[in-house]
């Protein structure tokens, strides 16, 4: 209920921003003329802001344009995840994540809230919780992913607070039952959450200018965002929290494992010393666990590095691996102030990312595209692009998550809190390309073999099937087939090289179904298709 109210409030904020119209680039108005959005532009928006185009033309987006489509996406009913039992029928820990993985892929395949899901997934790759880190319960993940879904279009400070108090995150980074130092036992508060919330979820290691460049000191060296003492102080601020009590029980010390609800404070385990966090942000002595937590989160939220640090990662997840400093600065400025004095307004930030002239330049077939633009589709996105483009279906028995797993991205099983790939990863020639960290000689072959399974076997497994009928129907006229593939998978921007290779493969077969399969294999294994650009 609270989430709905907050959501509604933020939506009004967003509309107020539109009234100012300062955010909307003139290019946008040029596009939203009475004529409808060309399919090239519409499907490009869908590549960036959904789990992928389908053979059905996006008429609403074409007729109403990006801005109205965005508003509809924000309003769309929110796809959810069902809670899973803590214990299985055998009385043992239930660590079967298959139903939650299936829910994720079914939501992505069919849910109306496509953009919300893309943002939520990006958030889940920043605020990482993994089964491999002791969170070996299926019950851990639905509440966490419901937070990402519910909060995707709220405020970043709310995301910070909700995920910080989520029990799965508490268990993964050991904030749950993290007690103040005990001189008698020779222990100190553990630093895991205090360190990683700064390094990975909010600030990064190096202070950033609004355009994402590092702040340098007088000798040209990057200035760190925090010191070892900050790590200690923030860790102490987060002490004294435990699992939510089971219904009908009272909190005493360390509550038993419970993933439902938010963590609760235990004042006796909280460090009440004064804490010096950042210049201008100190926590006085004798504050409660709640006061220190709110104070620490707000201090992090107000740091000047946070807008560029988070904005750049959201850009990298949605539009391009290598945004220009100016693009980062434009989005980070909206993050810092949405035009109505609100910092961290996610609706405004996401709209700024998608509507930016740099993101939209490729819509226009007469502008030569920047060769460095775009990003590789990560495995989960690649597989969903295939499913949505190729008439895919995911049943309750599907093991579709294993397909992404074979490419190095097993959903809910990131190797560590550093996620599946680093935002800093570069190709050997120095190009920023996070997703390439898990694109190897092995996963390149595996990716082509998944395309082969989808097209030539019609399935990944009995519960994950594909239907090529619209392509086979088009294949009686090979040129029409290539046009359809070009529209659905290449937003009508397929290169002549790829078109020639498709024709080469098609020319060796005669039956329409064989032509459709040969054409799709070449198109979907091409390097050009792996890069959303």
């Amino acid at each position, binding site marked *: 209920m609270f989430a709905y109210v907050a959501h509604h409030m933020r939506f009004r904020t967003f509309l107020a921003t539109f009234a100012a119209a300062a955010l909307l680039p003139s290019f946008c108005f040029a596009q939203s003329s009475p004529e409808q959005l060309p399919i090239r532009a519409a499907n490009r928006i869908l590549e960036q802001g959904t789990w992928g185009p389908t053979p059905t033309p996006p008429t609403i987006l074409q007729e109403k344009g990006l801005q109205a489509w965005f508003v509809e996406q924000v309003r769309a009913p929110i796809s959810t995840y069902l809670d899973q039992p803590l214990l299985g029928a055998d009385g043992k820990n239930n660590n079967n994540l298959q139903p939650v993985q299936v829910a994720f892929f079914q939501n992505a395949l069919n849910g109306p809230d496509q953009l919300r899901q893309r943002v939520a997934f990006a958030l889940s790759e920043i605020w990482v919780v993994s089964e491999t880190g002791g969170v070996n319960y299926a019950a851990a993940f639905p509440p966490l992913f419901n937070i990402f879904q519910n909060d995707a279009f709220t405020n970043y400070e709310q995301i910070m607070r909700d995920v910080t108090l989520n029990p799965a995150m508490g268990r993964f980074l050991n904030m749950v039952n993290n007690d103040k130092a005990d001189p008698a036992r020779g222990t100190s508060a553990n630093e895991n959450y205090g360190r990683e919330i700064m390094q990975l979820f909010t600030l990064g290691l190096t202070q950033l200018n609004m355009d994402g460049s590092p702040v340098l000191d007088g000798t040209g060296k990057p200035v760190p965002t925090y010191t070892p003492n900050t790590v200690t102080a923030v860790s102490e601020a987060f002490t004294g929290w435990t699992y939510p009590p089971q219904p009908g029980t009272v909190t005493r010390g360390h509550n038993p494992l419970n993933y439902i609800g938010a963590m609760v404070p235990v004042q006796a385990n909280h460090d009440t010393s004064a804490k010096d966090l950042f210049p201008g942000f100190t926590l006085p002595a004798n504050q409660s666990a709640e006061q220190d937590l709110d104070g620490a989160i707000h201090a992090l939220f107000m740091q000047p590095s946070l807008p560029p640090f988070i904005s750049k990662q959201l850009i990298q997840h949605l539009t391009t691996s290598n945004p220009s400093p100016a693009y980062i600065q434009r989005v980070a400025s909206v993050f810092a102030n949405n035009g109505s004095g609100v910092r961290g307004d996610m609706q405004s930030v996401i709209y700024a990312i998608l509507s930016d002239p740099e993101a939209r330049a490729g819509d226009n077939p007469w502008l030569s595209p920047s060769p460095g633009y775009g*990003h590789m589709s990560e495995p989960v996105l690649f597989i969903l692009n295939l499913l949505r483009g190729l008439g895919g279906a995911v049943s309750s028995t599907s093991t579709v998550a294993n397909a992404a797993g074979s490419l190095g991205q097993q959903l809910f099983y990131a190797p560590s809190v550093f996620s599946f790939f680093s935002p800093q990863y570069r190709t050997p020639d120095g190009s920023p390309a996070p997703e390439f960290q898990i694109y190897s000689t092995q996963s390149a072959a595996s990716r082509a073999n998944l395309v082969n399974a989808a097209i030539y076997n019609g399935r990944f497994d009995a519960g994950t099937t594909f239907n090529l009928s619209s392509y086979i129907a088009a294949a009686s006229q090979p040129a029409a087939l290539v046009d359809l593939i070009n529209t659905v998978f290449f937003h009508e921007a397929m290169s002549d090289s790829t078109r020639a290779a498709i024709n080469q493969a098609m020319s060796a*077969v005669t039956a329409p179904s064989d032509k459709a399969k040969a054409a799709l294999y070449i198109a979907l294994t091409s390097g050009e298709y792996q890069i959303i650009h």
Partner: protein
Amino acid sequence: MFSRRGFIKIGAASVGSLALRPFGLLPALAQSGSAEYRALVCVFLFGGNDSNNMVIPFDDVNYKAYSSLRGNLVLSGADLTNPVYAATGGAPYVFHSDLSELASMFSNKDLAVVANVGSLVQPTTRAQYLGQATPLPVNLFSHSDQQVQWQTSIPAGNSPTGWAGRAADLVAGQNLSQFPTFLSVAGNSLMGTGTTTQPVALNPGQTLDLAGFNSSSASQARRAAFQNLLTLNTGVKLAQSANNIMADSIADAQALDNALSKSSPLVTQFPKTSLGAQLAQVAQIIKVRDGLGMRRQIFFCALGGFDTHTGEILAHKTLYPQLSQALAAFNNAMTELGTQNEVTTFTESDFSRTFQATSGDGSDHAWGSHHLVMGGAIRGGDIYGKFPAFQLGGPDDADTRGRWIPTISVDQYGATLCSWFGIDDSQLLNVFPNLANFGSKNLGFLG
């Protein structure tokens, strides 16, 4: 299934980029080293292994200091059933009880311990650290940065290449084929990225073969179209990067298929664990080294889960047996292949962990760490370097929680391995640019 007969070769001439690997064995290039085989095998312990509980000085003074400071992480009695004695000086040490295979190899002189190794710019004392009086590695205590620094040996943290990749650049010419010198069975790693050479990644038990092709003309036409497209510029820069990796994959798949098809399985049984499967795959590739045309190889394996902020005692009870049993099986496999003196295995890890425990019975990120080196060429059964003084806030502590300042740098550790591997002294500085900052360029654990 994929049929080799249906494979259409693309010759070197049709490949437009230098990054692509041509097929087939090349004539032997001028040999700068000897013709014998040598391989390095890295086992990276991701998360930061608390080596304070891996091997412990067992003399009265040190063990007493250890047990008074480690709180709920202290090992005693039944946890410490593997005493060993250093070959030099005879001092007693003890391995964690779940590392009994490692202790046996230590006693058999197949394994040694290198103490308190970590990323450094130059030798650093506590006073210098606290006073910021010497240049320090960037972002100490951060997982990602310290992993990168262990893999690149560049403490400034801005290296596009890894130290093993740079070493591979120098020795690749000794190999008789274009098959990559660096092979990872744990995905991409910066460690193996060179300037002129790129790694190959192969998952244990898998192949790089492309499914769905046969010898029919339709299939061959599709295969030809697929491979031609890899060489064409589509105007999207990252697409070319993806094409290069796919082209490498195709070339490496053929080389691996050719070599492995003529091989038989190893007799040595490996444990059915992640690291066991990785090392089994490495051993299988070493077995076919002649078929692959390899004289110098570097392998990369990984075991995660060492970030033990809480519940460390329990976590080590699953991690350490996996590590110990897999390394022992690999050592046996090298004996089976007769390569025990030609293959040296070593550990790396982000960092060690605080000597002082956390409230959740774990430990936090620290710095210098003890490491394992294994193989017939190792001067085993000994401790190289010096254990820190077990004193919180003492002379070896970076602060007050037992974050030991390393007394051996990653450069020295790597240079010792690379000297044995065949990198000339004159070239070591190309691989380890900061090596000149340290007195000893060879720690002596390899003959």
